[in-house]
């Protein structure tokens, strides 16, 4: 079981590998770049926490074969 801080670091490391050629349209938040997402995760705001939560869930799903 990893700590919240470790989860955040893991997700930030994963976001760093995000392609620079894309933007992600996130509902009413608009179009976000890699840098925007990293900022939200660092701030730990509502979107940032959602991204962390979903990234961890995704990684667990990959581990169990989706």
């Amino acid at each position, binding site marked *: 079981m990893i700590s919240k801080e470790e989860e955040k670091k893991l997700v930030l490391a994963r976001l760093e*590998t*995000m*392609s*620079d*050629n*894309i*933007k*992600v*349209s*996130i*509902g*009413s*938040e*608009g*179009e976000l*770049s890699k840098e925007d997402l990293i900022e939200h995760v660092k701030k730990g705001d509502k*979107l940032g926490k*959602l991204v962390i939560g*979903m*990234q961890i*869930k*995704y990684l667990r*799903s990959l581990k169990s074969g*989706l």
Partner: protein
Amino acid sequence: MQTKRFLITRPNHDDAVSYLFQWSIEILKFAKNKGINYSDFKGSKANRKEVTKFLIKQDPGFVIFNGHGSRNIINGHKDEPIIICDENEHLLKSKITYAIACDAAAELGQKAVDKGANAFIRYEGPFCFVRDAAKECTPSRDKFVVPFKKFSNEVIISLLKGKTIKEAYERSQKIGLDLIKEYSASDAIPEYKDIRFWLFWDKNFQKFIGEEIASFL
């Protein structure tokens, strides 16, 4: 008397909804080819006054909302609220609703079903998709959005084929999973790894409530 006609809102006032506007063209072509009637509330027509009037007078059996939203609102053109929780969700009574609008179910969807909506399929978080940063002006040429379009449109196509809401949801979920696997087959295109995460995101947040066997046709 309820009509076998569906209503679709297609605002296009910002980049995100412009993509949804484009995706829906495929839906409308499909409907036309199948001889299914629809009313297209595009651009500024996607407003509360016109949509409300249509919902009351024409009583369509299926309603598709493209746009932004929140836990208790579905928006239309320029984010004007069209359906507001505790105000007019009763307009969705006896209908199947598909809302490609963020969060529009946690509260609004449940209340609509409580007030007699047959079923409500929606996203419990922000609906997301990956875009090619270089294709901003030509969304129709953006290949990165294709899997997201396929995933979302499958709900509608399935319902237009006469499937139940449960079947439409399950088919969309299966397509989502198949697409994640398809985009996992190779990392030759670096953007694929981002696509598969955000597909997982949408797949995870897509939910339906209401009568499982509800169908449009």
